[in-house]
Structure formats: structure tokens, C-alpha cells
């Protein structure tokens, strides 16, 4: 009877029972949710009501500012110094002093208590509009109403729609795709390293505390290595599933518990984050056509993404875990193992850099990386939200799977020899000799 299940059970239960497992399982989702929620919360807090006293040396801007829910402009007149003192007494939140003469497009904003960050931008926006309108009427003698009509009729809107061979169409929000792609790529990178490292650490531990000698006098090194790798993989899947669950529950909880105005900001804020890499769609947000585009969120290739995430995570993990197990067994301590770990980790690090710098998921570089094993778990996940031809996906998976088999075979050879090798600094040349043995 194979003893692999016994080994898997121990590797799994000894890790799941650890305090560190429970802590990271709960802490990581909390940090992630906090990273989403806190900036939004801070932004929503900034939208408090503000009263601004306006003083214009040319008197042109008087009564021309537009009041909004959160922003009240008042024109009390008088000396700048007295207005400043009234501000200090708390009558208003800020004093806007627009300079006179030829400097009429320049102003100073005085305040005692620091106003919301967005205030400066909002004031500038309004001043721009007032100066723009003034220039239109005064210098070019254009009627403002006519201008508004021209502006509205000339406004265009482009929707992005992806089509496939079957003639199916789906609305595609390119920035969102890219954002999801990067998140998935980074997650895969993170999980592959985290769990592969666990495998390596425990291989080193067993070797250095010599229990390995008892174990491999009972089971074949290959069985033990596979049992360990699978056991840790199950821990990873469980932990990941729990974390997804916790994040989901937390987000849903926040949506229900907090006032609706807050959740609205949540959506906008996350969309702002989405568009950050491109930055070209800021117009789209302003025109609020975005909210119609969000429907494409639901035509997202969710099933494909989730399946691919698991398959690529699993294969990527298996490749790295088996290599790490082999290398761990070849060294006596973690410091020594670094010389081997860094070179084989470079492809992943390079891919992470490539997807964060290269803007298009369809570029030649990203396409190549998504086919090459080692780099494909990250690069392909980056591409999947934007759609990937089936043959490329198949080719990438076949290559990845073959690499996995090759890596396990190589590692088993290194593992078998390395476990019993003590007190010797192993070199790449030596590893190569073990593989050929």
C-alpha cells in the first residue's frame, strides 16, 4: 500500500494546526480589505462642507462662482486682513484672494485648519471655467449659450466591445481587464513563492534535524517528496479558499452596514484605481459613462478566469515546489539555498516587472512569456481577462505540464542524493552530476 496519503495527512494537519496558519489566513484578507476601504473612507471624509470667502481685487469673480452641496462661496467684501481674522475666528473655512491687474488668473487660498485636499482642485476648476467663459465672450465675442450647444453636439463616446469567433460580443472595459490581470498575476506570484518556500524550508529542517534518515528508511524519497508537495498544496488551496471567503464576507458586510453614499464612493474609487494604469479614461469618469460600462464587469470571463487561476497556480506551485524541495535537500541551511533559489526565481520576478510596465496584454513580449513555462502562470493570468485564443492557452498548459513532469523528475534525483549529503557546499556542477546519475 502506498504511504503517500499518510504523509499528505501529516504535512497538511501539522501546518493547518499551527497558529501562524490561522493568523495569516485571517490577517491577509483584513489587510486587503483595509487597503480598499481605508482610502475610500478617507476620501469620503474629505467631502465635508466648506464655506469660502472670495475677495477679488478686480471684482470680476464676484458672484460668478457656482455653489454646490459641499462648497459655498460668499462675497462679504472688505479688507483681506479682516477677512483673514474672520476665518481664524471660524466664520469660514478659507479665504480666496484673487490678485488684481494682469495677475487676475492667480489667487491665494488662506485657511487656518487644513481643508480637504480636493478643495484646491475644485477652486481652480471653477476659476478656469470663469476665465474661459470670460475669454470667449470678451475676446472672441462668442455667445455662451451657442458655445454650450456646440460643445454638447460635438461630444462623442466610444464603447469598447470585444468580439470572438462565434460572433458573440461582450462589452470590454480595457482598464478593468488589465487591473484584474495584474492582481491575478501578482497573487499567483505571491502564492507560488509562499508555498514553495514552505516546502523548501521543511525539506531543510528535516535534513538538518536528521529525522529524514528514519523517514527514508521507511518510504521512498520520491513518495515522501510528493506527499509533502501535495500536502502543502492542499494547505494552500484551503487557505486561499478561506481568504477569498473572508474577503467576500467583509466586503458584503461593509456594503450593508455603511450608508449608501459611502458605498457609491467605494465603486467610484475602485474604478479610479482601475483606470490609473491608463489614465486616459479620466474623461470617461467625468462624463459618468463609466457606470454603463460597469455592466461589462458582469460579462467578464469569470469562470475561465477562476479555473485558469487554479490550474496555473497549481502547476506553477508544483514546478517551483518540486524544484525548491530538490534544492532544499541539497543544502544544509537556508542561507546556502539562496544561491540556487535566486536564479530559478528570476523568471517570475521578470514577468511581474513585465506585466506592470508593459501596457498591452497583447504585446509580443507578454504573449511569449505567457507561453513559456516558468513565466506563463503570471503572464497568462494577466492576459486572460482580455481574452486569449484557445490554441495559445492549450499550448501554454501543455508546455507547463510537461515542465512540471520534468521538474519533478529532476528534483526527485537531486532530493534522493541531497538528503544524505552533509557538510558539503553543493555547486551547480555537482547538482548536474546528480541529475545524470
Amino acid at each position: 500500500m502506498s504511504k503517500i496519503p499518510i504523509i499528505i495527512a501529516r504535512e497538511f494537519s501539522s501546518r493547518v494546526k499551527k497558529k501562524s496558519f490561522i493568523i495569516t489566513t485571517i490577517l491577509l484578507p483584513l489587510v486587503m480589505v483595509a487597503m480598499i476601504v481605508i482610502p475610500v473612507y478617507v476620501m469620503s471624509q474629505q467631502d465635508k462642507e466648506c464655506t469660502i470667502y472670495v475677495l477679488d481685487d478686480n471684482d470680476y469673480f464676484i458672484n460668478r462662482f457656482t455653489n454646490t452641496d459641499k462648497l459655498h462661496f460668499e462675497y462679504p467684501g472688505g479688507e483681506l486682513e479682516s477677512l483673514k481674522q474672520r476665518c481664524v475666528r471660524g466664520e469660514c473655512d478659507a479665504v480666496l484672494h484673487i490678485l488684481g491687474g494682469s495677475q487676475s488668473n492667480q489667487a491665494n487660498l488662506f485657511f487656518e485648519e487644513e481643508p480637504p485636499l480636493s478643495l484646491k482642485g475644485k477652486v481652480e476648476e471653477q476659476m478656469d471655467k470663469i476665465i474661459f467663459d470670460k475669454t470667449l465672450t470678451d475676446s472672441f465675442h462668442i455667445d455662451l449659450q451657442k458655445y454650450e450647444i456646440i460643445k454638447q453636439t460635438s461630444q462623442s463616446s466610444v464603447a469598447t466591445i470585444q468580439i470572438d469567433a462565434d460572433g458573440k460580443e461582450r462589452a470590454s472595459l480595457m482598464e478593468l481587464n488589465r487591473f484584474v490581470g495584474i492582481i491575478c498575476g501578482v497573487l499567483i506570484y505571491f502564492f507560488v513563492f509562499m508555498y514553495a518556500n514552505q516546502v523548501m524550508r521543511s525539506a531543510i529542517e528535516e535534513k538538518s534535524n536528521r529525522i529524514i534518515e528514519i523517514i527514508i528508511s521507511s518510504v521512498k524519497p520520491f513518495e515522501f517528496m510528493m506527499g509533502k508537495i501535495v500536502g502543502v498544496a492542499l494547505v494552500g488551496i484551503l487557505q486561499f479558499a478561506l481568504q477569498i471567503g473572508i474577503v467576500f464576507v467583509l466586503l458584503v458586510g461593509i456594503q450593508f452596514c455603511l450608508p449608501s453614499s459611502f458605498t457609491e464612493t467605494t465603486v467610484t474609487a475602485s474604478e479610479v484605481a482601475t483606470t490609473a494604469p491608463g489614465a486616459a479614461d479620466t474623461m470617461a469618469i467625468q462624463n459618468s459613462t463609466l457606470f454603463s460600462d460597469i455592466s461589462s464587469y458582469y460579462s467578464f470571463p469569470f469562470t475561465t478566469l477562476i479555473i485558469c487561476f487554479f490550474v496555473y497556480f497549481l502547476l506553477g506551485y508544483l514546478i517551483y515546489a518540486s524544484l525548491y524541495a530538490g534544492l532544499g535537500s541539497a543544502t544544509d541551511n537556508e542561507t546556502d539555498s539562496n544561491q540556487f533559489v535566486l536564479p530559478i526565481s528570476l523568471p517570475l520576478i521578470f514577468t511581474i516587472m513585465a506585466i506592470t510596465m508593459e501596457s498591452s496584454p497583447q504585446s509580443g513580449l507578454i504573449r511569449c512569456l505567457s507561453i513559456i513555462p516558468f513565466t506563463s502562470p503570471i503572464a497568462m493570468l494577466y492576459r486572460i481577462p482580455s481574452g486569449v485564443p484557445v490554441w495559445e492557452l492549450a499550448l501554454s498548459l501543455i508546455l507547463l505540464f510537461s515542465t512540471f513532469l520534468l521538474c519533478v523528475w529532476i528534483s526527485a534525483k537531486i532530493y534522493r542524493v541531497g538528503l544524505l549529503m552533509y557538510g558539503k557546499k553543493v555547486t551547480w556542477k555537482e547538482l548536474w552530476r546528480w541529475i545524470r546519475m
Partner: protein
Amino acid sequence: MKLIDVQKVTKKFSGNTALDELSFSIPQGCIFGLLGPNGAGKSTLIRILTHITMPDSGQVIFQGHPLQASDVANIGYLPEERGLYKKMKVSEQVIYLARLRGMSKDEATVKLQHWFEKFEISSWWNRRVEELSKGMQQKIQFIVTVVHHPDFLIFDEPFSGFDPINAETLKKEIIQLKQEGATIILSTHNMASVEEICDEIALINHGKLVLNGEINEVRRRFKRNQFHIQIEGTQVTDISLPDGFDLIKKQIRGTDVSLTLQQQDGATSKQLLQYFNDKYTITSFNEILPSMNDVFIQNVK
């Protein structure tokens, strides 16, 4: 009846020959001392016997068939470098290792309880290994070795790290295992314990067999024909010796005189005994056999 037959086993590591056509056999039901200086190839041989590594050529016959993976269920191995999972509970750990040796969980639990009661350590059941002292860990390691009731046991330096009391307990346990029918390999540098409990020995050096056989027979091979005789009466000052014997050492021990004599060629111990018996009262007489320590040093130099 042979339990193990090592046949022309050779093992090389990158040009360095660890074992060179080594052949010997281990009879069933004995304690077999595996001796040799550091680097002689003992560890390599043990790893082959425990099926951890394979010989490059030659084979090991175990209970009449070539050693195979399924035999590990019948082998117990106490490595020289002890090691256990530090964070794991003692009971879980022993049961896990016993299951890897092919025992069922329930069977292992019952056996383990038996051993814990025997060593009076039942209170350790739920403790973690790292909470135990070194001596306690050694006991656990011993239980790991024997819990699956193997026919063949290998103890590599079993006494290191034990205090004299625990070493004595361990010695008794090893002898009891032999009485229950197990065959035991004892690999150690502690020659006193070899003399005390081993039935047979094999001495290897540079991967080759130097000496092999029943322990007293091996010691007799290196005897220097010296005798030790003790007679009553300290007042005897001038002791005459029979022809063919020279006095090496004379010592007064309480009311007795103890003599160490060298026998020359042609003389016999019978003559010595008769001569002394006529003149004095003999309280003890024995042939001086070289200690295993001497045999070891003489053969390894």
C-alpha cells in the same frame, strides 16, 4: 541460520570507494557488533541494510530473499544522529513513523501505550518533543525504532547521550529484544559494551572486512599467552615459577597475591596450574584475552 547475508557489496562515491566487495553474514538471533574507525564505511553499509541506498554491485540477502522495499516494515533503525519533529506531539510522531513502517494506526497506538507504560513515561503522551530533555528524546527515539516489533534492528551508537543509568536500561532492553528473537546490529565505538553484549563482530576498515567471527574466538586469535593467577597468603615473598613461564607483574591484593605470567613456547597452562596447585592455594586463574579495544587498535593501525 543466517538472517542477513551481505554478498560482495560495493559502493562508490565519486571515485572514492566506500565499500569494496564486502561479504559477511549475520546469524539469526544474535547481537552483532559492527566495528570500524570513522570513515570505514559503516554508515554506508547501514544505509544499504536499511534500504536507503542501493549498492553499486553485490547484494544483500534478507531472510532468504534479496532485500526489498517491503522489508523495511521488518527493520528498526536508530540512526547515529537522532532527530524528531520538534513541534510535533510525542504520541502523534511515533504513530506517524510507525505507520510509515506499515503499521495500522490502532495497532501503533496500542503498542505505543505498552512502551510508554513500560518506560513509565505515559505523562509525555501529549507533550511536544521540544519540551523534553535530551535523554527523554533518546527514549522516544528508541521507542520509534522498536515500536513496530521488527525482526531486525540496527542501533548506531545507541548509548551516546545516555547517562549510565539509562545506558544500563537500554542495554537490558537490547538484550531482552534478542531474547525475544530479534537480530540486532550494534554499531559503536564503545568497546566495553561490545565485549559485554555482542555475540559476533565484524570489523571493517577502508570498506573491507578485517575481522569477523564469534567475539571470544576473535579475541583468542590475538591472545599473547598471558595468564593471571591469584594465590592466598601475602607472607609468601619468594614465589617460584614452573619452567616456561616468566613473571610480568606481582601485586598484593588484600590477603592475596596476584601474578601476571607470560607463557613461553612449548609450555601449557596445565603445567602452570599443577605446579601452583601443589604449592599454594589458588583463588583465581584465568587466561588474559586482549580487550576488544586492543584488538581494534591492533587491527586498524
